[in-house]
């Protein structure tokens, strides 16, 4: 009983230890976690190590590496062994297996038996050893042990270790494994033809006096070399019957080869979008991109071009191949897919990293759906959505969009403005939308800045070629009749502030003037030389 108590006590101690969990987490980040920043460096180090040991293996065939080479080999093998043991360690939590059994036993009031629990923990652990990649790891280590030198050829298994460290090779394997059924079918067909042809050639040629075929292995070898269209010509048929067999085999071989090629090509054709998408996901992850554009139609393109010229990072999602192609041509990361696809949004980090989502598709139903989904996964996210019909603006706001932009409404507004004041329309419109050099800009008054507590009348705006438009201040207020104060949902705009108006810290001073004037004003403010 005391031993089992000891075990349980130890298990609980491990469970509660922050150091143990932290250490295990660190090792997990290093070896397994594809998102850990250290992982790429570790992978590159291991790839170089593997390649160096393999190169040494090749070099050693004809040369002597001396003691230094042996030492290097030992260090490398030491690293491989440590890696293997660490992977073995982080594979699962044995203490959890034991505690699970213990708690179950306690729950149903059964006496806890320590040996079966330990046995189960061991079995769980051993599951690691039979994993394909773990077997490769082991085979890369074992031949270094001197008595097993004859296994040296297995050192080549170190090359297979590269699977662990490179994503493209593992993607290749994944693509092929999805075509398992076709490949197995092909393999059976190939085996059948090889066997038939080998038997036939053996039957017709093996007993000839000048025959090059001395055994059945030779005929299988010949059949494969012929079928694959390699045709070394070291074994050739001499009898008419043998040549007929060869002709049939060659035709069958063409079929096998083309079948094989088409399987591979179609597998990649089907998967290429997924592989590309994975590339984009990791790029998005690495660059910490926080803006997602759903829909790369005309509106999306304009937004993307402008964001790019602001040097802001973003990723584009669009279901049309044509649009994705345009995005890629302009050098933007783009994923082919529908914004309605929740898994896609999650892969792009909608629940964690993305802080701004732009729903710019031409379909309001899709926009509402994406808005709702995104809001559900990330209530903090800022969503700007396009509303293609006037009546959908409310729905989008209810779904959680922070802002809606309605192309038709904007057009209506502009057309109406144009009908009202056509003369200076271009200039005024450019001014309001920030498309001309002359424009409206906001300057934030920082705490302790020169303007904190300053009267408007004391600032010489005229000399700086600026016109004060208003001041935006945090806090609610009522719009007043005279039109000097406007409520802006939690903020207040004081339009055309009088000379007595006093600026406070955190106010936004809205100015209109040439961009150079504003930049100069900001600069002066920053240096306190106003």
């Amino acid at each position, binding site marked *: 009983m005391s031993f089992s108590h000891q075990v349980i006590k130890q298990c609980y101690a491990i469970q509660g230890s922050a150091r143990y969990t932290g250490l295990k987490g660190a090792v997990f980040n290093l070896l397994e976690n594809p998102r850990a920043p250290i992982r790429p460096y570790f992978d590159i180090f291991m790839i170089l190590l593997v390649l160096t040991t393999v190169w040494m293996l090749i070099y050693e065939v004809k040369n002597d590496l001396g003691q230094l080479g042996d030492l290097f080999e030992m260090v490398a093998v030491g690293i491989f062994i440590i890696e293997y043991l660490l992977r073995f360690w982080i594979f699962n939590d044995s203490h959890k297996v034991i505690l699970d059994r213990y708690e179950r036993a306690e729950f149903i009031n059964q006496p806890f038996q320590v040996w079966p629990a330990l046995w189960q923990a061991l079995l769980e652990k051993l599951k690691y050893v039979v994993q394909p990649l773990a077997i490769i790891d082991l085979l890369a280590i074992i031949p270094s042990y001197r008595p097993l030198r004859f296994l040296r050829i297995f050192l080549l298994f170190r090359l297979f270790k590269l699977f662990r460290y490179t994503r493209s090779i593992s993607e290749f394997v994944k693509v092929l494994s999805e075509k398992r059924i076709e490949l197995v079918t092909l393999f059976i067909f190939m085996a059948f033809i090889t066997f038939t042809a080998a038997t036939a050639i053996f039957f017709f040629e093996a007993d000839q006096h000048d025959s090059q075929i001395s055994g059945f292995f030779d005929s299988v070898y010949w059949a494969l070399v012929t079928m694959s269209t390699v045709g070394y010509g070291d074994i050739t048929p001499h009898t008419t019957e043998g040549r007929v067999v060869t002709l049939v085999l060659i035709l069958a071989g063409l079929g096998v080869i083309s079948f094989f090629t088409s399987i591979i090509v179609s597998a990649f054709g089907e998967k290429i979008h997924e592989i590309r998408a994975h590339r984009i996901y990791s790029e998005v992850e690495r660059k910490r991109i926080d803006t997602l554009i759903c829909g790369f139609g*005309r*509106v*999306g*393109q*304009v*937004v993307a071009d*402008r*964001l790019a010229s602001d040097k802001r990072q973003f990723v584009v999602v669009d279901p049309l191949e044509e649009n994705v192609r345009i995005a890629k041509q302009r050098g933007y990361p783009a994923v082919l897919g529908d914004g309605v696809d929740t898994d896609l949004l999650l892969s792009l980090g909608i629940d964690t990293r993305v802080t*701004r989502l*732009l729903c*710019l598709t031409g379909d309001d139903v899709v926009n509402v759906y994406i808005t709702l989904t995104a809001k559900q996964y990330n209530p903090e996210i800022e969503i*700007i959505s*396009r509303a293609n*019909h*006037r009546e959908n603006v409310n729905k989008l706001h209810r779904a959680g969009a922070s*802002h809606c*932009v*309605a*192309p*038709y*409404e904007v*057009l*209506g*507004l*502009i*057309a*109406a403005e*144009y*009908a*009202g*004041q*056509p*003369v*200076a*329309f271009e*200039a*005024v419109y450019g001014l309001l*939308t*920030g498309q001309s050099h002359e424009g*409206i800009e*906001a300057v934030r008054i920082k705490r302790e800045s020169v303007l904190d507590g300053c009267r408007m009348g004391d600032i010489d*705006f*005229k000399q700086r*070629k600026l*016109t004060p*438009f208003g001041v*935006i201040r945090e806090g609610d207020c009522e*719009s007043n009749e*005279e*039109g000097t104060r*406007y409520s*802006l949902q939690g*903020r207040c*705009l004081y*339009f*055309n502030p009088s000379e007595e108006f006093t600026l406070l810290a955190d106010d936004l001073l809205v100015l*209109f*003037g*040439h961009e150079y*004037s504003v930049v100069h004003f900001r600069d002066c403010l920053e240096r306190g030389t106003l």
Partner: protein
Amino acid sequence: MGRRDTLIFGSGALGHEVAMQLAERGIQVYLYSNDLDEVGGLLAKGLQAAIVNYMDDDKLREIGIGNWVKTVFCLFSDEPKNLFLTLSIRALDPNLKIVCVCESTSSGERLMAAGATKVIDPYEISGQRVHELIARPYLVEMLENTVFGKHIDIAEIEIPEHSTLSGTPLSDLQLDRRFNLITIGVVDLELGNQLIFSNSGVAHCMDAGDILVVIGPSQEITRLKRAVSEDSLEPISNITDP
């Protein structure tokens, strides 16, 4: 139907939207289309709409083009229709204002070549809006609630003949103190259509025919318009140094 000087061709969502916005500003329009269903829908919503064969120049003349119509909006959803209509109207009246909608930069250029006065690309503008929302959220929110939300208006005010304001520098008007209006600038038609910004440092002296561009609450604009037409607006400098 009575005479109205603004016409809209194309009665889809766009035409509807523009007609509503214009109606809110007190501009009554007629909508024309060759699509029976769309016209029916607009009539049901209480708008003045009719069917017209826009390919027939005589029909266009009948509805006042080349005569009393001053502004035409071409808001068909297909570009060829807009292009055809622009060409026809321009041939009938070289001075009419034609506002067109387009879907891409290249079609915009074609429409301008066909004689449109102003081409609006709703997608381009929406895209810019979205970008502005990201780049300058506070300002956009402010403009959306005030200027575009119709609390604050922009107005163009023409200086009449023989006004006492002739010859006064723009800076002496001081509309920001006397009217709660901000002067954006002035357009001197003799110098072209360029807006001279009030803060550009150019000392512009006003004369009759100049157009003042101001921004502010609508009641203040009305007050200024009245003062200008009654010629009761004295430049500040006249008051301070008699």
